[in-house]
């Protein structure tokens, strides 16, 4: 993780940061929406914009649902976009199980909102090229998803 951040420091980059508070369910959609607009202005492909927005929505929703507080950072460099969430909370005891479609520990209240169906992490994996999750039970979770951007020649 550190290696990527160090490398990125030498290149032109744009960093967007959002604070995530407990039970602030709206922040997920709002952050995804704001970043989406920024990425569209930067001229990213619709597919990349959509994938990044989905990753942000799901990752922030996970923090809101499961953690007590956290932070979202979106780091944009010409080659890739990194979505990073860091939270303080219960952590994930079994990451492999959490990655399984349909597995969820969310409450009924969360499900009634349309989330907690056990699709969050699988969606993030599906929409990103690289996904790293580090979690410590009772401490918190760090999630880093990387989406590589096609070079201008590849956009077609």
């Amino acid at each position, binding site marked *: 993780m550190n290696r990527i951040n160090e490398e990125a420091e030498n290149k032109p980059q744009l960093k967007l940061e959002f604070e995530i508070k407990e039970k602030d369910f709206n922040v997920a*959609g709002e952050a995804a929406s704001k970043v989406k607009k920024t990425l569209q202005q930067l001229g990213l492909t619709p597919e990349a914009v959509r994938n990044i927005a989905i990753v942000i929505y799901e990752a922030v929703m996970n923090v809101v649902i499961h953690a007590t507080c956290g932070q979202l950072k979106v780091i944009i460099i010409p080659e890739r976009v990194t979505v990073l969430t860091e939270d303080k909370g219960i952590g994930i005891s079994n990451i492999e199980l959490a990655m399984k479609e349909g597995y969820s520990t969310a409450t009924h209240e969360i499900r009634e909102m349309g989330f907690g169906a056990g699709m969050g992490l699988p969606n993030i994996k599906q929409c990103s090229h690289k996904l790293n999750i580090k979690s410590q039970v009772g401490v918190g979770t760090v999630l880093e998803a990387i989406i590589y951007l096609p070079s201008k020649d590849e956009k077609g």
Partner: protein
Amino acid sequence: MNLRDVQKILKAEVLCSEHLLEREVETGFGCDLMSEMLAFAGSHTLLITSLTNEHVIHTAEIMDAVGVVYVSGKQPAKEIINKANHNNIPLLSTPFLMFECCGLLFTSGLKGCKRDNS
């Protein structure tokens, strides 16, 4: 078909963004789980749901959905309608229940999303 056709088929009330009803609808996706929509709905899709919270609007915006149909005559709160209007997302409300609503659109020629849509 376009959203105006959808409105007629579903005898739907238009809640906002009526000026955008000429928009073409490529596929339909009926669900009350936002993550399923984020996973499987393609772009230019019509979202059909009975959920009326703000997550539907955020999801529609992120997915570039052409519009949202609320089934069972449901209608979201005014601030949610305003939010959709601000984001150019037409909202429709149909008296039909989910199964009938999807069936009516499907038999009128609207295709569903495939799992590998992206």
